[in-house]
Structure formats: C-alpha cells, structure tokens
C-alpha cells in the first residue's frame, strides 16, 4: 500500500512538471506578449524594453529553465496588468474559490448521496421517480443559466439575497446553491445507478437468502461496495467544481480563481494565466491523489497487496 501511494505520488509530480512545460510552450506559441500588452503603435524601442524587462529577449530554452526554477520557488513573476506579484494576486483568490467549491461539494454529497440511496432502495416507487425527475432537471439545466435564474428570482424579484460580490456570507449563498444543486443532481443519479448495480449482485441475493435484515444488507454489504465507484465519481465532481468556477464565478462577480482566470485570459496577462493553469492542475492532481488513496483504503484488492 505504501508502494502504491508512493507510485501515485511520483506520477502526480510528473503530471505537474508536464503541465508546467506544456503551459510554457503553448503560451509562447500563442503570440507576442509585448504586442498584446502595449498598444499597436508602440515603437520597436518600447517593445524591446518590454521584452528585456520581462526576460522575453532570451532564448526559449533559457526562458524555460528560468521559468521552471522560478515556479519551483513559487515565483510566477509579476502580473502584466498591474505589476503586482503573481503569487499574491493568485493566492488572495484561492480562499474565495475554496469557500464556494468546498461548501458546494459537501452540500452536493449531503443532498445527492442520501437522495440516490433512497431512490435505489425504493426503486420504481413514486419517491424514486420524483428524485430522478428532479435530478434530470438539475443536471440538464446548464449551471450558469441556473445561476442567472437564481439571481433573477432571489436578487431581482424577491430581493432577499445579493446578486454579486463577496463582502458578506450572504453573497456566497447563491453561487454555492447553484453549484451544489447541479452537482447534487449528478451525485444522486450516479449513487442510484451504482447502488442498483450492487444490489443486483449475487452476494446480495445470498445475504437475503441468509435472512440478513434489509437495512443491514444495504449498510454492510451494498454501500461499502458502492463506495468504490462513488469515490471515483466524487473526484470528478470535485474537479468539475473547480473547473466550473470559471463559469459560475463571473456570473456572480465572485472574486475567486475562476473569474480571475477569465479576466487574465481576456487581458492576455500571461504570468497570471500560467500560474492559474499550474494551480488548477495542482488541485486536480491533488484530488486524483486523494481518490487513489481512498480507493486503496476502500478496496481490499489493493489494500492487501
């Protein structure tokens, strides 16, 4: 098991290094930052001065090594837009995004998992059909649209919640609700289908034939086996929440990583974009690592080897 985790850790670091490299290459290919940042009528001297200032006049391999070394130190350079340290610019947005995504994640589990379990155990009942109808609805409405609907209903029409900003806890309610509803729907659907699969297994029939009470069958036999595919799915959900922040945060003007990423891309703020991509990748890799470790803990086939 230690070897398993060590192997996953090494793989995670390799993925990170690969991403750092890819980001470097792709962004160098996407155009001359000096021309993007300065106005079109800037003279060659101004361009040269800009390139010299940001180290863009050196050879590409040199720039790469310099860049990797800096990244390892947590130094992503300085924002083109306002000259502030990229690390500061990005890190002040991290808690904002984490507050929304983690609350939404917990909420989608708290709602989605029990809903899926009830639907699976009471399969084909009115309760099941109701839960699944709600889940299909929640899942098929795009979450940014749901966000706009929420703003209209709660901020414009009922005037009970603020539509944008992040100054109070109330401001977090709508983004969290939007995110959580969409993902709770996905979690509920997957929980239901996974549990139905497990409940159809011969070992469940065997437990029934042995007279094991229904509740015990669900809790002791079915759920631990359903947990393994669920962990994988929850990993995807967590990743989707982070990625989705680029869609949801701008809707609510929530000053997190998502809206920061959109802004930086629009203004061509290369250092910020780079740092954001590396950070998002680091989050994803961390989520995957957690999934792998949980998977090993839950699955005796991996645990015992």
């Amino acid at each position, binding site marked *: 098991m230690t070897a398993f985790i060590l192997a996953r850790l090494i793989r995670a670091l390799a993925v990170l290094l690969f991403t750092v490299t890819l980001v470097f290459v792709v962004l160098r290919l996407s155009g001359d930052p000096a021309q993007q940042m300065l106005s079109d009528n800037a003279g060659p001297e101004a361009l040269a001065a800009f390139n010299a200032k940001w180290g863009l006049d050196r050879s590409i391999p040199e720039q790469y090594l310099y860049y990797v070394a800096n990244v390892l130190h947590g130094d992503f350079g300085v924002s083109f837009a306002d000259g502030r340290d990229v690390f500061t610019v990005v890190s002040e947005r991290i808690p904002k995004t984490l507050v929304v995504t983690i609350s939404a994640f917990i909420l989608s589990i708290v709602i989605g998992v029990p809903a899926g379990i009830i639907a699976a155990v009471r399969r084909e009942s009115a309760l099941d059909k109701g839960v699944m109808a709600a889940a299909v609805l929640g899942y098929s409405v795009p979450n940014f649209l749901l966000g706009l609907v929420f703003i209209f209903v709660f901020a414009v029409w009922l005037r009970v919640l603020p539509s944008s900003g992040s100054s109070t806890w109330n401001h977090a309610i709508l983004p969290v609700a939007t995110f959580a509803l969409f993902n709770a729907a996905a979690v509920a659907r997957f929980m239901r289908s996974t549990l139905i699969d497990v409940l159809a297994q011969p*070992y469940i029939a*065997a437990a029934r*034939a042995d007279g*094991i009470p229904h509740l015990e069958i669900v809790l002791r*036999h079915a759920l631990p*086996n359903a947990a393994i595919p669920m962990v994988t799915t929850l990993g995807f959900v967590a990743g989707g929440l982070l990625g989705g922040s680029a869609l949801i945060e701008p809707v609510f003007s929530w000053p997190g990583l998502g809206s920061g990423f959109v802004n930086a891309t629009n203004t061509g703020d290369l250092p910020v974009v780079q740092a954001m991509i590396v950070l998002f990748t680091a989050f994803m890799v961390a989520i995957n690592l957690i999934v792998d470790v949980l998977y090993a803990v839950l699955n*005796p*086939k991996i645990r015992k080897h």
Partner: protein
Amino acid sequence: MSVPFLQASGLSKIFRHKTGLFAKPTNQLAVNAINLELAARERIGVVGESGSGKSTLGRLLLGLTEPTEGGVWFEGVNHKERQAQDWTAFRIRTALVQQNPLSALNPQMTIGQQIGEGLLVHHITGRAGARDRVASMLERVGLSSAMMNRYPHQMSGGQRQRVVIARALILEPKLVIFDEAVSALDVSVQAQVVALLRSLRQELELAYVFITHDLRIVRHLVDRVAVMYLGRIVETGDIRSVYEWPRHPYTRALLASVPSMDPTVRNIEPPIKGELDGSILSTGCTFRTRCPFALDRCVTETPGLRFVAGRQTACHRAEEFPQAIAKQGSLTRKDIAR
C-alpha cells in the same frame, strides 16, 4: 395426512419486459404451473437448458421472487402468509448456493465475516462462538481455518465455492437450493466439490434441490429428477428410472447429448433442432417446435404430466419410445419409429 416438507402448487412466474418507453411490454413465462413436492431429507435434481426457468423456480421456492400465480408451502406454511419473523425463521432453515462463486461473495468482507454473519445476525452465537463455528465449518468443507481472514479475491474458484457452501451450511439448514452450484468450475474442481457434497449429504440431514444443466453431475447427487422445458416440468421421477428409460423426447435428447466414454457407442436419438423458443404457445406441447416426433395431435392437445412406467411424463407418445438412446456400432435414424 402429514404436512409436506416443501410443496409448490400451480407455481407460475411471468416476467414483464419493457423494451422501450412506448413499447408494448412482452411477457415471458419463466415458470409455468409447476407442482412439486419434496420430503424432508429428499434430494431432487432440476435439469434443463439455460432459459428453462429452473433458476427462477429455485428463487420462487426460497421466496426470493414472488410468484405470479400459485404458491409455495414450507412445512405447511405458505410464503404469502409469512410475517417478518417467520421469514427470518425460514431463512435460517434454508440456504442458497449460487453459480458464480466470485460474485456470490462480497469482495469487501473476509470470508470468515461472511460465513459467520448469519450466526451473529440471528444471535445464534457470540463473536467467539462464531469464530469457532466458522473454523470448524471451513475444515468440514476442506479448507484451512486460517483462511478465515482472506478476501474472496485471494482464493481460487474451487476454494470460493467451498466458502459459498460453508456459508450456506453454517446455520444447519434443512433445505438448500443449489443453483448451478458447480457449473462455473473446472471439471477437476467440479469433481472435488461434488465429492464434498456427497460426503456432506451423509452427515447432514438436509433436503436439497440441485439445479443444473449437467445431467452427469446430478445423477450422483439426487434421488429424483425433474426435467424442465420452457417453464414446465416435462418429465419427473426416480432418477434411475428416468435415466434408464427416458420417456420424453426432450429428456432423451438431453441424455443423448451427454458424450459417451465409449467411442463405439453411437447416439441414435435424432437431435433436437433450434434453440429455446420463449414465445408463448396457447395450445399444444411447448416442445413441439423442436421435437423430431411431433404429430398433429401435439399442436392441438396440450400434454399434461401423466404416469408412465413409474414416472410422470408430459408426452403423448411416451409409450412409443424404445429404451435405448444409444447403441453399439452404427445405426441409422430408421431404427426409430417415426
């Protein structure tokens, strides 16, 4: 009159399949008006092709599936009349052994936990007592008690099937349904498990229903046999009389399909054609579409089970079949009266 140990009467199960949202559901008659009686300590084999309804019959007998019509009585009590606590008592007295021993075991629990679960759940023993019982049961089925802490994936197929048998027998049931219990195993492992079952049969006073498509195996394990075709019993009786002189063309074809160990023995039974046809025929014999001996009468008149030469068979022409289904040397189909 004494109460029969296990009795099924007019037992039918129809599965409704919905192929699409607006499609008309199709009905599949998995078990069709079956009557069956089993005495305590009696062993019966249920034989048929896959799709003949034999597994559904097993699940109906254990009350794991509800019948569409008819009923099952165990020790005089209809399944339909059982309350929750009666069900628990019934489950303790009965057990199920399923086909694939890997999927029949919970991959997340050690085999000791799984075998002992019934003891703990039904408060028959405490934890320490359960450990002892599990250990001795493991040894009884030919495994080491040290295997208690293993997970199913750490065992071989034959070992897993022994575990499944141990789990079924730990509560000392009076009735066990073996549903293709050895079919998924290699022939050599099969032989070991059959030998185990035969030795357990001597020790334990249990009745069982052995469901299988393999006629060779059932011969050594049961007193009586019931041959199923499309949800019906087409022939049933003492294993020896049925095997020695089968009186139903389907039984004959099944027995003829078992390869002989003697290369000079030729199968003279005309082969049956096609595959199991599940479409419900309103009248006539369900086997007639594949039967080499079908007459006009088989289309119009449904043959019921009737006594012929010491067993029950559902064929209009039962008396006409010769004893032999195979003969030494070469013979042609002309040997059989058409």
